[in-house]
């Protein structure tokens, strides 16, 4: 699929509950950021780190900003998500990751809505 990435300033938003948790984490840790994960277990969930903890690379794309925090994602993964908009929410739980909120028994979660209908190429 030849996906053209259209940067959408409104692509990533945040719920009030998640914003509150982000503000709490900033007080404890200072500047923080998000990187969207993929794969097994706690994959497909956003990971929250202190700025500088997770080394961003040329493969990553900054896809938005929430509550003053940058939200990043692997570019190849982003292409597959590009037809959706995301709201960062929070639910009780802890996951099993290095994400900053886990010890608080909270876990960030992505809720999605559609901004473009995905098109199939090969498969009907």
């Amino acid at each position, binding site marked *: 699929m030849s996906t053209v990435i259209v940067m959408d300033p409104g692509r990533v938003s945040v719920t009030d509950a998640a914003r509150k948790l982000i503000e709490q984490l900033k007080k404890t840790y200072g500047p923080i950021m998000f*990187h969207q994960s993929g*794969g097994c277990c706690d994959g*497909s969930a956003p990971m929250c780190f202190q700025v500088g903890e997770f080394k961003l690379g040329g493969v990553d794309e900054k896809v938005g900003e929430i509550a003053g925090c940058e939200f990043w994602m692997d570019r190849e993964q982003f292409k597959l998500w590009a037809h959706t908009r995301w709201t960062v929410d929070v639910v009780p*739980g802890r996951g099993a990751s*290095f994400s900053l909120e886990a010890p608080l028994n909270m876990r960030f979660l992505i809720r999605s809505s559609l901004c473009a209908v995905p098109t199939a190429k090969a498969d009907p």
Partner: protein
Amino acid sequence: MSPTSSAQARQPSSQPAAGPIKESGAFTAHLKTIERKIALRSQYENFIGGEWVAPVKGGYFDNISPTTGQVICRIARSQAEDVERAIDAAHAAADKWGRTAVAERARILNRVADRIEEYLPFLAAVETYDNGKPIRETNLADLPLAVDHFRYFASCVRAQEGSLGELDDDTVAYHYHEPLGVVGQIIPWNFPILMATWKLAPALAAGNAVVIKPAEQTPMSLLVLAELVQDILPPGVLNIVNGFGLEAGKPLASNPRIAKIAFTGETTTGRLIMQYASENIIPVTLELGGKSPNIFFADVMRDEDAFVDKALEGFAMFALNQGEVCTCPSRALVQKPIYERFMERAVKRVEAIRQGDPYEMSTQIGAQASNDQYEKILSYIDIGRKEGAKVLTGGEANKMSGDLAGGYYIKPTVFEGHNKMRVFQEEIFGPVVSVTVFDTPAQALEIANDTLYGLGAGVWTRDINMAYRFGRGIKAGRVWTNCYHAYPAHAAFGGYKKSGIGRETHKMMLDHYQQTKNVLVSYSDKALGFF
């Protein structure tokens, strides 16, 4: 000492408690049916140097059973100091363990296997309590496989030999296998004992001492296992440190005193683990999941026989372990001529899956492992609907009653759509399969490989040539052919692409936990004559 960030020091020392410890009535009733068991503790410390060691800072966290949503015990909430203590114990034991004769190491691993087998129904019950998966699965799969993996690596290490190369008449190159020393392992929550075993059995067989961190969602069962084998394993050979990723996982993964780190989880944390390993220049093995295609060719339905039934079971395998399997066949590709007929029967087969009380032997799937996992799966069912995927069955939570009302149950769900939808591209880690149709084999292969991942795949056909071409053509570490979800110790498991690095299971895992030592010997008195 490992680098401890100032943020860690600022971490709160305790967290909000989820409530008092409350035993599940169903679990207690089930335990009564089991003969060989030990008492469960209301609080588990770290297992370091063969002893129970309280966390240095004294913090604990609540362990919740996903079957009921209730707190079932408290677990040590370790920090960098505890990890250092565990690594100290491992270093104190590593040299002697590495020099222990392989026959003796194998004997000890076989005794561990025997002990697990002796207490199998009990450990299976605890695993179900901790993880939420049905007792049918822990009794018939998780624990028997764990037993067999210990025995398999006990055998492998005895059969392993180095090599010698005769370079010329009086020069010989000897190659020895040497243990790495102290290794770190971080395991996931979907098969807590079995995934620990996949990593522990080869590492211990190869002569390493281990510091292992269970997942904070399912920390209990491995600690119960440790208590059962406490008298068998030499102190310090196995050390279990519990806690959260940032607080305990990072000090382990980034520690300059480990010789290797092995991790199973997701891609972002996988990158973080590699990043830490790169600082210390140590090897990593990573298993990071997949989005495995399960391909059904038209000839599957050529005859009405046992094979059709097997293939339909193979389709329904996406619901095994509530879909919480890295190789969950979460994409099904069905060839056009049989699509309608096959799907009609496949959906019926899925609807016949018995979900319910995990302690009933007839229950086939139980609860998701945690509330956040449950919420994430529901969010993906929502995305699928918004993307226009059609729900053929399921598509919602399964509300249970009584003791299980607070548990995290989701109905097996079949989506129909196309491969560009997010429900076809992202690992949901729930009982959700996304089905699409294909015309030609070329199209099937294109769809199968159109994914960021490459861990598993399934191919179902009566045509041996087609099976071979797909077995080789799919870019994934394991292609189950006319079967699915078999996890023998004797077959290598691991990923292509973003599914990870390295392999697990199979004797090749000894290499993943060993150094190669070359001793190059001249048996000649003559100088080279070069200087």
